[in-house]
């Protein structure tokens, strides 16, 4: 019985992919931004093999798009650029779906007002995604991102 429990504990993590590990975002490096200019931050996203997330513009109105949002405080978000999606056909879909797989990058431009307080700050972002394999889908989830920004003259 004890051996069975131990074996189960060892085997289960291999059999059951926990959603928490499906998508990860590398902590972004510090961004140095001059007052009165625009600075761009790039997020490196990694998705486990065998899974996809909907792109920022899914092919179906019911699918949940990938979306990066920021609480930028004194900075102004000046646009987010998502990578070009892949159009992939899955067993469950009649039409190809607009998805991201593997490693990809999302860029956000921040306008730094000339009055922005100088010095280091950390702003928060949320990347909302909804992941599926070719057989199953996982509920929508958000990953929090912390971006250190040094505002200089």
């Amino acid at each position, binding site marked *: 019985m004890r051996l069975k429990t131990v074996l189960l504990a060892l085997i289960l993590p291999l059999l*059951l992919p926990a959603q928490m590990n499906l998508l990860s975002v590398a902590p972004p490096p510090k961004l140095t931004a001059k007052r009165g200019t625009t600075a761009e931050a790039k997020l490196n996203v990694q998705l486990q093999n065998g899974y996809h997330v909907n792109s920022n513009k899914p092919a*179906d109105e*019911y699918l949940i798009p990938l979306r990066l949002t920021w609480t930028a405080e004194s900075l102004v978000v000046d646009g987010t650029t998502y990578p070009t999606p892949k159009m992939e056909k899955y067993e*469950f879909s009649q039409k190809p779906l607009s998805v991201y797989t593997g490693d990809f990058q999302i860029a956000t431009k921040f306008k730094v007002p000339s009055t922005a307080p100088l010095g280091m700050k950390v702003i928060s972002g949320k990347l909302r995604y909804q992941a*599926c394999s070719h*057989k*199953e*889908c996982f509920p929508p989830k958000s990953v929090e991102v912390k971006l250190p920004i040094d505002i200089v003259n």
Partner: protein
Amino acid sequence: MTLTRRSLAYLFAGAGLSQAGVKALKDRKVAPPFALKDAAGNTVKLADYKGKVVLLNFWATWCGPCKLEIPWFVEMETRLRSKGLSVIGVAMDEEGWELVKPHAEKLKINYKVLLGNEEVAQAYGGVDSLPMSFILDRAGRVASVHTGLVSKSVYEEDIQELLKAK
């Protein structure tokens, strides 16, 4: 937490995430009872389906594989209702009926659709991924569990076997 729930789902399934065939009578456990609302606001209890073979399908509007399965269930409900099958769809969309109702209409769902909640999901082992289906025998016991997309014939075989048993 997520892994724990999935582990529970695995254990609940007994023989894996998607087993082959229905469980032997001795291995079947009574399905957790629930009372959920339908689109009209009526409370529907699992106990109302006593004596029926029930295909309990957890789904969501954002789940692509679920959309492939739903037309199969619509067809089965039509064909096998008189033989004792009842399909119940439990929608797990957080947004509720605002999203689920038009989607169910678009898919022409002809069986009972209920709005799920965390409590029911936990009772059924977490339901961490969709689709997830539980097939219950006429005594309300879980005879088979399928997680993820499986073929229509898998459902058909399980259901036919359970319909034969009186």
